[in-house]
């Protein structure tokens, strides 16, 4: 797919993408403590083994074992107790950071997230704004996601923040973060959810205070701009452009060019002339009539687009001759 967005911001680090919060940096720190601790112990084991292999190789003068050593209680107690202490330190450390990951601070900006095959939608309950596959947040502000799935399990993962959480049908799950740097960052789905699991991507867009205010205002504009322009805007904003072209080429879905008024043939053999009702139905119940030659992959936008927005798209499609 040529339209693959790629906004996973990497840094010079060979293990991790750029950390976007203090908490992410702390988690990286713990990882490095664990990793270097492991490397040291591993090297110790490795070097001792190599030493034994060289020193006690079977040779003409070393055909039988020099001495049958079968126990050493002090040593055995040491290598039971020391690892136990080490892992318990890790356990407590990991637990403390985990609590920080799990418990959001008081004054968070709340955003409702819905995962569905195969897109993410974000709703700003206070501002009555909905976005698709893009979530805009202000920098240095604690954000809280309340997440739910419309169908199967999904999982929302933001590598730059080192956070993820399962998104479950019929039950809310929460996730919070505070992004400390402006930019565009990758969101993945990391719970297997079917054919387009790997395409279920979104962007976290961290804006400065002022830019965020400006975005809020422009996003609210949809109330007054002309229907046609609204439709044009939604075409990209709601990610229809991932599957539908305007220039007559066919992608995952049929092109919108000349769609209005055209005879549509369906997989079940029926056909219909494309009118306003048909287009509306195609958006709300896409699986009802499947255009011949295409798969049943278009998600339903029921509840995700307002009536006015659907009207906007219809008006816009009418202009595409």
């Amino acid at each position, binding site marked *: *797919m040529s339209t*693959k967005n*790629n906004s*996973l911001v*990497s840094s010079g680090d060979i293990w*991790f993408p750029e950390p976007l919060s203090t908490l992410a940096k702390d*988690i990286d720190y*713990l*990882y490095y403590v*664990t990793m270097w601790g*492991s490397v040291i*112990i*591993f090297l110790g084991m490795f070097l001792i083994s190599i030493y*034994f292999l060289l020193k*006690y190789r*079977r040779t003409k003068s070393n*055909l039988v*074992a*020099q001495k*049958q*050593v*079968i126990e*050493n209680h002090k*040593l*055995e107690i040491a*290598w039971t107790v020391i690892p*136990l202490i080490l*892992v318990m330190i*890790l*356990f407590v*450390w*990991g*637990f*403390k*950071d*985990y609590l920080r*990951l*799990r418990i959001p601070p008081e004054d968070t900006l709340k955003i409702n997230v819905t995962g569905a095959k195969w897109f993410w939608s974000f709703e700003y309950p206070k501002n009555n704004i909905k976005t698709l596959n893009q979530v805009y947040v202000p920098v240095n502000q604690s954000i809280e996601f309340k997440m739910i799935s419309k*169908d*199967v*399990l999904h*999982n929302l*993962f933001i590598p*730059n923040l*080192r956070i993820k959480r*399962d998104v*479950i*049908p019929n*039950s809310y*799950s929460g996730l919070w973060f505070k992004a400390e740097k402006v930019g565009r960052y*990758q969101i*993945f789905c*990391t*719970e*297997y*959810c*079917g*054919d387009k*699991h*790997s395409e279920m991507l979104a962007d976290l867009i961290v804006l400065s205070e002022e830019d965020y205010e400006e975005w809020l205002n422009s996003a609210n504009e949809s109330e007054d701009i002309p229907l046609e322009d609204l439709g044009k805007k939604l075409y990209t904003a709601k990610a229809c452009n991932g599957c539908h072209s305007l220039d007559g080429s066919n992608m995952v879905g049929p092109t919108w060019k000349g769609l209005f008024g055209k005879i549509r043939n369906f997989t079940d053999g029926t056909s219909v002339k494309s009118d306003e009702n048909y287009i509306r139905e195609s958006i709300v119940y896409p699986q009802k009539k499947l255009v011949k030659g295409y798969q049943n992959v278009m998600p339903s936008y029921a509840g995700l687009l307002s009536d006015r927005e659907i009207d906007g798209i219809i008006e816009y499609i009418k202009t595409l001759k």
Partner: protein
Amino acid sequence: MGHLENINFFKAAKGFKSWLITVDHKRIGIMYLLFIVAAFTLGGLAAGIMRIELLSPDKVLLTAKQYNQFFTLHGAIMVFLFIIPSIPAALGNFFLPLQIGAKDVAFPKLNLASLYIYVFGALFCVYSMWHGAVDTGWTFYTPYSTTTDTSVISMTLGAFILGFSSILTGMNFIVTVHKMRAPGMTWFRMPLFVWSLYATSILQVLATPVLAITLLLLIVEKTMGIGIFDPAIGGDPVLFQHFFWFYSHPAVYIMILPAMGIMSELFTTFTKKNIFGYKAIAYSSIAIALVSFLVWGHHMFLSGQSDLASTIFSALTFIVAIPSAIKVFNWISTMYKGSIDLKTPFLYGLSFLFLFSVGGFTGIVLGTLSLDVHMHDTYYVVAHFHYVMMGGTVMGFLGGLHYWWPKMFGKMYNEFWAKIACALIFVGFNMVFFTQFILGSKGMPRRYYSYLDQFQPLHQFSTSGTWVMGLGFIIVFIYLINSLFRKEEVSNSPWGGITLEWQTTSPPPVYNFIETPIVDNDPYDFEKVKI
């Protein structure tokens, strides 16, 4: 049949039918070996094709749907058809009775029945996966698995049929160990491979019924519409994960314990040393078996289980790591002041030692709550469990196969090529999977058909490792087959091993020993037993 006593078990009866109706544990073990190698080949090919697909984020060979079917096929075959039965059913069947000086297992006919059930279950699984185009991943998580189609039931049924086979084998082994030991073979004179099989058998007998319960619940839900796992009718999809991992986490130890048993055999024979800390190793097998029932929740830190539960599971996970670490330290110490012979089986033993340790250390990372949040469901996890399952179990299996090959077939393979192949497999393995640790911590999610462009170089390097590893396996296959046509017979104990299986002929006679052995020494007492 008195006159059969001196004839090796291959020659004792001839013809295809004599194999189909045999009750000789050695023949059953060899038939298991054949099927298991076939399963490994099939699962390996599926993996190879997946890796080729991942050379590019765009389509190479497969569509997304086909890719998803391939990783499901790969996972399910490797777990249920290959790893779980690999060591116990093939090598265990052959060597458990030999190592305790018995004529056969306690219930020879049941043993044959387990084999038939395994073959039936395997065919059933592969057929239903292929036919039903199952694309759920080997974990069959609901509601994806129940909303797409019904094949989750047939797959769970398949897994259960296979599980039933391992319950029967497990019971058979438990009774054999209790009842069939040669005179003088006390519990603490048993070779450690036997201990590990005993611990594994307990796990199999206790954990597998949970699969049956899950299956029953799935069927009840489907047929009666009672909401259990499906949220659309009021069920709880997370409940399925609890059931699934309650079986599948102990299953992880069903997979690794027998390989640990083989390690103890390799580290004694090839150093001519008595094992360091016999009792610690034996008890740690049992400890692992018990604690492993209490850690399933570490697969579910992010699934919406309560934070308290996650915390407890995290703590227990760290505790279950300790007995494994103890074993590793014991094996290393066994080399001290030994007479170390770097033959191929021991090279696999060393591979296990290092690869399994890497698997263990990265397991610590994943058990740490805050780190797991980032690593969960990324390639880091994929790399981790391949280091444990392949770096551990498969290396142990290969070590055991090379160690006991001359005993099973009475022929020795070409040592030079065996070493080359071992090196290729070791290097190839690390190319494939070490790379995936980096991919994962950089944020590459698992089960992705397509990926961001920035991951491509690492994916390509990982894929190239599969070719190195594949070449290694092809070489193994060739020299092992070739060895069967060699003229020279091998002696009773080509490596100088002293456990009972090395005190009979290679291959052993039908009833294993001409005279019932009488044991009056520890299993690895190289000072007392001279061969």
